[in-house]
């Protein structure tokens, strides 16, 4: 069942490549919707308690298995992916472009990317995970390099080199992990076997570092974040949505599943350093976002800041903060999708997303401005939005262990209000500028509204009724805590460090 889920978009993507024009767009959208519906069915079956995991020998000599499975976090990521892809396909208009590089190639690549990402979230074998982790780079490279701004080729290469560097460091660790485990007996890359790995602390630290660096590049942490603003600025907004909304989540996903899951002791040791790095990401990302003149870059930097929160939540090592992080990962996917896509709508009309080139959009296109405001408010974690719940849990959890860090981290949310609201004020409110009147002639079309409706709805629902989803995230968080062998600090005792 999981295999079908993961292969569905791949097959669809390959079919779409052979179609033409509008046909490709509709078939692609249909495939994405079917995948979404199917993923909901899978989720329902999984939540009823059926064990869906699959398990087959893949490369015997390496101890690699074709093993897929679902847990709470994996399930949410799968749903996030399958929901965002149809949204993006609907929001982006590509079918009317020139010949061979038109809509069908783009749609096909997006679907292939979806399939590979699903495999990443489903794999329960480290080698299998690694293969798809790296494989996602190929369609993403072509998506960035093929469509977008004039400097996109450079941005794509930068993206690929950063990711490959991280991926190769990860390769080093994965090989080492396999060899270390094989030295204890039969080789195996199954996560359930690898948790029994017993190596010296220094080896564990070495392997942990490989994993952590790779995931830190993916979930762009300062100082290895520089590829993201460039990629987000040059790629089309739809591509950026997929990049930040889904692919970058692999970073935090991997930290929870692999860094903490496989190397609990090293994770505990590394915590102080990582937490400080995360804090730097939060503040640096937020400050940089305030200084941006390009809206896409701005959104990219907000993501750097938000990913800082997520990493902070993971390495604060409390049930609350880990659970909050997973919850936040989902909501961040939605809120950035809204921001990127609305900015994309603007870009299609105005041809530029420099903040100074816009002004008073609200009067011309109220719906578009409203959607941007909603996305922005979600991004700055207004109560009532899903991301508030996530960010609150992260900070509350962190507070119980590192009050000072949490206090400084809270600054990030204040800065978030600044960068979002300043941007909104400059572009949307105020008198209509001449340029805006000239270019932004129409409000969001029905297709554009329809694309974002489910995302905004999801943000609100998660904001007001977070309980069902929090139950799912708690499950993963508790499991991580058991692996880590740490218990939550007593809430009343703020003993600090």
């Amino acid at each position, binding site marked *: 069942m999981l295999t079908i889920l993961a292969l569905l978009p791949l097959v669809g993507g390959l079919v779409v490549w052979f179609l033409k024009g509008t046909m490709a767009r509709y078939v692609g959208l249909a495939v994405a919707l079917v995948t979404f519906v199917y993923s909901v069915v899978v989720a329902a079956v999984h939540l009823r308690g059926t064990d869906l995991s699959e398990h087959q*020998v*893949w*490369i*015997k*000599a*390496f101890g690699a298995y074709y093993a897929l499975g679902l847990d709470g976090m994996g399930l949410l990521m799968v749903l996030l992916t399958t929901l965002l892809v149809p949204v993006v396909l609907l929001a982006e208009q590509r079918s009317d472009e020139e010949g*061979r*590089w038109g809509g069908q190639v783009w749609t096909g690549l997006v679907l292939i990317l979806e399939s590979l990402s699903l495999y990443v979230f489903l794999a329960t074998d480290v080698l299998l995970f*690694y*293969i*798809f982790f*790296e*494989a996602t*780079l*190929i369609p993403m490279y*072509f998506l960035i*390099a*093929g469509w977008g701004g004039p400097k996109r*080729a450079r941005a*794509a*290469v930068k993206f*690929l*080199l950063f990711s*490959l*560097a991280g991926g*190769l*460091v990860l*390769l*080093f660790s994965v*090989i*080492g992990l*396999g*060899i270390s485990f*094989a030295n204890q*007996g*039969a*080789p195996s890359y199954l996560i359930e076997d690898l948790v029994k790995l017993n190596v010296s602390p220094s080896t564990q630290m070495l392997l942990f570092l490989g994993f952590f660096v790779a995931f830190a590049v993916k979930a762009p942490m300062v100082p290895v974040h520089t590829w993201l603003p460039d990629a987000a600025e040059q790629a089309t907004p739809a591509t950026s949505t997929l990049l930040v909304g889904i692919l970058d989540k692999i970073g935090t996903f991997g930290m929870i599943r692999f860094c903490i899951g496989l190397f609990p002791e090293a994770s505990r040791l590394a915590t102080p350093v990582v937490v400080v790095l995360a804090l730097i990401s939060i503040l640096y990302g937020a400050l940089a976002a305030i200084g941006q003149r390009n809206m896409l870059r701005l959104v990219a930097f907000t993501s750097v800041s938000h990913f800082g929160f997520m990493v902070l939540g993971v390495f604060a090592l409390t049930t609350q903060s880990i659970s909050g992080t997973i919850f936040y990962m989902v909501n961040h996917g939605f809120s950035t999708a809204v921001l990127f896509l609305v900015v994309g709508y603007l870009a299609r009309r105005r041809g530029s997303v420099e903040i100074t080139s816009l002004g008073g959009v609200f009067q011309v296109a109220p719906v578009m401005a409203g959607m941007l405001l909603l996305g922005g408010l979600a991004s700055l974690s207004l109560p009532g939005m899903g991301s508030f719940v996530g960010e609150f849990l992260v900070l509350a959890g962190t507070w119980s262990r590192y009050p000072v860090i949490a206090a400084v981290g809270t600054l990030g949310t204040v800065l978030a209000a600044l960068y979002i609201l300043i941007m909104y004020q400059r572009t949307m409110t105020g008198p209509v500028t001449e340029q805006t009147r000239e270019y932004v002639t129409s409000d969001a079309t029905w297709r554009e509204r329809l694309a974002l409706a489910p995302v905004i709805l999801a943000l609100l629902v998660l904001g007001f009724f977070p309980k069902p989803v929090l139950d799912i995230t708690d499950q993963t968080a508790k499991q991580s805590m058991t692996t880590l062998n740490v218990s939550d600090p007593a809430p009343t005792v703020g003993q600090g460090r």
Partner: protein
Amino acid sequence: MTTLLEIAAPTIEYRLLGPVLIVFVGACLGVLIEALVPRHLRDEGQLIVTGVSLLGALFVLWRTWGPDWRSVGAMGAVSVDGPTQAIWLLILVFALLSALLFAERRLSSGVTSFTPMAAAVPNSTLEREAAAARVEHTEVFPLLLFAVSGMLLFPAANDLLTMFVALEILSLPLYLLSGLARYRRLLSHEAALKYFLLGSLSSAIFLFGAALLYGYSGSFTFSVIDAAVATPTEHDTLLVTGMVMLMVGLLFKIGAVPFHSWTPDVYQGAPTPVTAFMAVCTKLAAIGALLRLLFVALGGSRWEWQPVVAGISVLTMLVGAVLAIVSRDIKRLLAYSSVTHAGFLLTAVVGASTMTTGLPVGQIGSAAAIVVYMAAYGFATLGAFGIVMMVRGVAGERNDLSAWQGIGRRHPWIGAAMTLFMLSFAGIPPTAGFIGKWAVFSAAWRGGYWWLVLIAVILSLVAAYFYLRVVAVMFFSEPATEVSDVHVVMPGLGTTVVIAVGAVMSVLLGILPGWIVDLAASASQLLR
């Protein structure tokens, strides 16, 4: 008196050595065809002989496959063990594909990639007349077969003399073949001459090393040398000097730094089918021979050669990758890439992990890792050179990267295939190259050389960059106007098959590598 002159008739295991013998006989038949068959029939005749002998060799190999057959044959001169058979399998398959590239005619409107008259001065009347008369050198096929028979013997050689003879059998036809390009004759001459001079020098060094090792151990046979290494004497200088000289000879053929400098020139000048054949099969044979020499004969002194090979491996990866970044010619780029790959291969040799007796069941050691790596590398290389043959201008192929601009846009399938090969070279999953890389790095790590793996991983990134540049040039740069004579010619069946097989295998070995890994693991035991 009779007792003095009596020479025991050598026993030859004809079935076991069948593959080598069949290819050799095929080569001789090819020479006879050149001598006896009328000109217009020669081409067909040569193709049939080449195909039949390579397929026949594969058939015999299949019939004698397995641990029951594997033994040291030909009175101790040849050792047909697991790695030998696995390397034979790859060499035969790749030679068959190379032969298809040799036979390609459609690309240059009905003639092969080889010069009409090699003996003529470039651009002379004689040459032009020969070209006009559509004269052809069909000798390339017997030359190919001779080279293949040498390559089959090379990794199987169980004493230094056999190894040297095999080295010469495989080298001499290659020197000749390099000089036979139809276009850019001078470049081709230069390549042949360079290859020949440097090659004979390295052969001489190899021979000198063999002599020194004979002086040390009193024998050419690997097992005797092994025994001599195990008993320490005061003649260690002889051993170390001899060892180094033998390694120089072999590393030259592999194309490892600092013995790599011939690679770009020869790869560029030689006819592309020959380049493809050399890049794959020579490397395969040479790495097999190196493996046997180091593991079987000199295994006892591996503490001496491991650091040396590790150093060479780092240098090879580094120099190959850096020089590939600055090369503007696709064949030179692929040449440097092959140098880099030699470095990656050597990491597995350094690991020497089949040598430690405690290898757990079902895991792969150095020999198996090399087989897996070469399988991935071979298919990608043959396919890539097949595509190189298709990009042509008015005078033969256009190898400068500027001619490749925008090819992926105009010909998506060709661009996609080349991208696939580049990804496989770069070792990005889910392509075959990744599995190969995985195998050799694992072998190195298992031998305790984790720092070598770290360096190799970092240099993989450098390598990935220049492969990526080829992809970017094909897809994301607009064709310049001054190279408007560039066109992509659709090839004949042979080249199409090579490219298709290369592409399919590059994906298949990446997604379902189980069978090749198991096959390699089942054939990883070196016989002493």
